[in-house]
C-alpha cells in the first residue's frame, strides 16, 4: 500500500517491463511527461509507443539484466534520453527533448526468478544545460567567439587518433593575419580587436560545420579540416585567402583591407603524430610569410 503510493509520488519516471517488453507498470510521472495514461499503455509493447527504444544497446542491456540480474546505467552523455518527452525551454538551452539519466534493474518473484525489469528515468535537463554553458565558456575564445587553443589541441589529438584508427583523411590549416601589428599601431587596439573578430567571422563562414576553427595565438588561427586530403584543403585555404583579401572591413566608417598567409598540411606517411601535423603546417606558414605573404603554401 505505502510502496504503491511512493511509486506514483516520486519525482522520477518508473516503468516496469515484462520479458516481452510489454509495459506492466507506468507511474504518474511517466503519465505526466508522456501524455500517455497508464491504462492505455499497460499490457502493450513499449516499442509500439517508443520505437526509438528498439535499438541494439537497449535490447542488449535488457537481455543482460534479465539474464544476469545486473543493473544498467544509461548516462545522459551517451544516450541523451530514453523517452522523447518535451521539455520546458531553459534559458540558453537548445534541447528538443528532456535529457534523462536512466537506470535499469531486475525485479524478482518469490522464487527469485527475474520476471520483470524496471526503468527509472531522471530529468537532468537543467543540470546538462548548465554543464553545456560552462563547457562553452571553457572552450571558446572570449573575443572572437570561435574555439580557443586548449580546445583545438584536444580535438587535434582526438582527430589524429581517429585518423590512426580508421585511416580517415585529415588536414590542418594555420593562418596568420599579415601586418597585424601595423593595424593596431595605425588604427588602435579597438580596431585590431574588430579586425580579429571580422576575420574570424569571415573564415568561419567559409568553412564547413564539421571543421574546427580556433584562435591559436594573438593573430594566429588554426582550422582542422576533417575528412579532407591535401588538394581539398589547399582549395579551402585558397578560398579563405581570396575572401579575406577581397573583403573590406568597416571600422567606424574607416574601410580597412587586410590579408592572411596560410600553411597547409595533411596526414601522410611521414606524419606520425598530431604534433608533426601541426609542425608541418607551421613550417608551410613560415614559407608563405617568407614568400611575400597573402599566399598559401603546403
Amino acid at each position, binding site marked *: 500500500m505505502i510502496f504503491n503510493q511512493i511509486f506514483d509520488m516520486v519525482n522520477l519516471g518508473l516503468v516496469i517491463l515484462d520479458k516481452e517488453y510489454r509495459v506492466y507498470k507506468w507511474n504518474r510521472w511517466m503519465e505526466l511527461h508522456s501524455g500517455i495514461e497508464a491504462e492505455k499503455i499497460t499490457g502493450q509493447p513499449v516499442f509500439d509507443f517508443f520505437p526509438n527504444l528498439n535499438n541494439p544497446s537497449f535490447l*542488449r542491456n535488457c537481455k543482460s539484466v534479465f539474464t544476469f540480474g545486473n543493473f544498467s*546505467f544509461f548516462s545522459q552523455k551517451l544516450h541523451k534520453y530514453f523517452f522523447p518527452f518535451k521539455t520546458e525551454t531553459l534559458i540558453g538551452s537548445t534541447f528538443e527533448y528532456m535529457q534523462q539519466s536512466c537506470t535499469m534493474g531486475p525485479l524478482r518473484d518469490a522464487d527469485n526468478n527475474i520476471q520483470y525489469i524496471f526503468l527509472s528515468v531522471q530529468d537532468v535537463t537543467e543540470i546538462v544545460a548548465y554543464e553545456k554553458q560552462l563547457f562553452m565558456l571553457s572552450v571558446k575564445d572570449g573575443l572572437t567567439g570561435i574555439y580557443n587553443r586548449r580546445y583545438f589541441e584536444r580535438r587535434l589529438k582526438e582527430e589524429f587518433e581517429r585518423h590512426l584508427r580508421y585511416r580517415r583523411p585529415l588536414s590542418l590549416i594555420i593562418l596568420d593575419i599579415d601586418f597585424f601589428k601595423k593595424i593596431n599601431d595605425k588604427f588602435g587596439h579597438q580596431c585590431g580587436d574588430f579586425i580579429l573578430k571580422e576575420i574570424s567571422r569571415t573564415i568561419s563562414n567559409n568553412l564547413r560545420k564539421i571543421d574546427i576553427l580556433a584562435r591559436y595565438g594573438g593573430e594566429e588561427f588554426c582550422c582542422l579540416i576533417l575528412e579532407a586530403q591535401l588538394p581539398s584543403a589547399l582549395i579551402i585555404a585558397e578560398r579563405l585567402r581570396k575572401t579575406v583579401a577581397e573583403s573590406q572591413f568597416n571600422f567606424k566608417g574607416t574601410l580597412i583591407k587586410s590579408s592572411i598567409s596560410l600553411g597547409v598540411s595533411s596526414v601522410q606517411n611521414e606524419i606520425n603524430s598530431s604534433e608533426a601535423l601541426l609542425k608541418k603546417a607551421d613550417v608551410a606558414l613560415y614559407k608563405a610569410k617568407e614568400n611575400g605573404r597573402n599566399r598559401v603554401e603546403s
Partner: protein
Amino acid sequence: MKADHSSALSTEQKEILQEVMNIAFGKASADLADIIDIYVALSVPNILIMPASKVKNYIENEVKDYGIIDIVKQQYWGEFKGIAFLIFSSGAGKKLISLFQKNENLSFDSEPIDAMEKETLVEVGNILIGACVGKLAELLGDILTYSPPVAMIEQKPADSISKNTFDLNCTAIILKTVFRFENEDVCGNLFLTTSNKSIHWLKKALNKILDEYE
C-alpha cells in the same frame, strides 16, 4: 592480535569456491555469447587470500605490464559484497567503441572521443562485471545490488586505486580472471575483492554446496 589471513577459508572451501567460479564464469561467458553476442573468453580464475592492506599493491603489480591503464570500478552488495575492478591496458576503450556501438546511430561530432570511450567502458564493465559477479552470486544463493560503475581512462595503476578503498584491518579474498574479447584485440583483468565481512556468509554458502555434493 594479528589476523590469521590464511585460515580465512579451508583448503576444501577454497577448492569448492574455485569450482563454483569455474562454473559461474563458464556460464557467464556462454550467456554473454548466446544472449548478447559478446564473445569473451574468461580464464580459469585464481583465488587469493591476503591482508586488505596488500590488495592495492597486489593489483598494481598484476597490471604493471600494461603501463597506463583504463579501469572500471563497481561495488556490489548482498550477503556477498565487495568491489570489482576491470582493468585494461590504455586505449582498450577506444577499440571497444566500435564493438559496442556498431550500427548504432551515435553522433561522433557531438561527443569527444574520451567521453565516448568512458561511456563504452562503463557499459562493457557493467555487463562483464554483472555477468561474472551475478552468476557467482546466483550459484552461491545470493542476490546483489550494484552501484553505477565508474570508469577512468589513461591512469597510472598507482593513482587508480585509492588506499582508502579497503578496510585495512580486514582480510581480503581476491578472485582474479583474465578475459579476452574474441575477434577484438582487447584483453584485461577482472579482480573481485571481498572482505572478511562476507567470509562468514561465504563459508556457510560453500559448506552448503559441499553438503549437497556429499
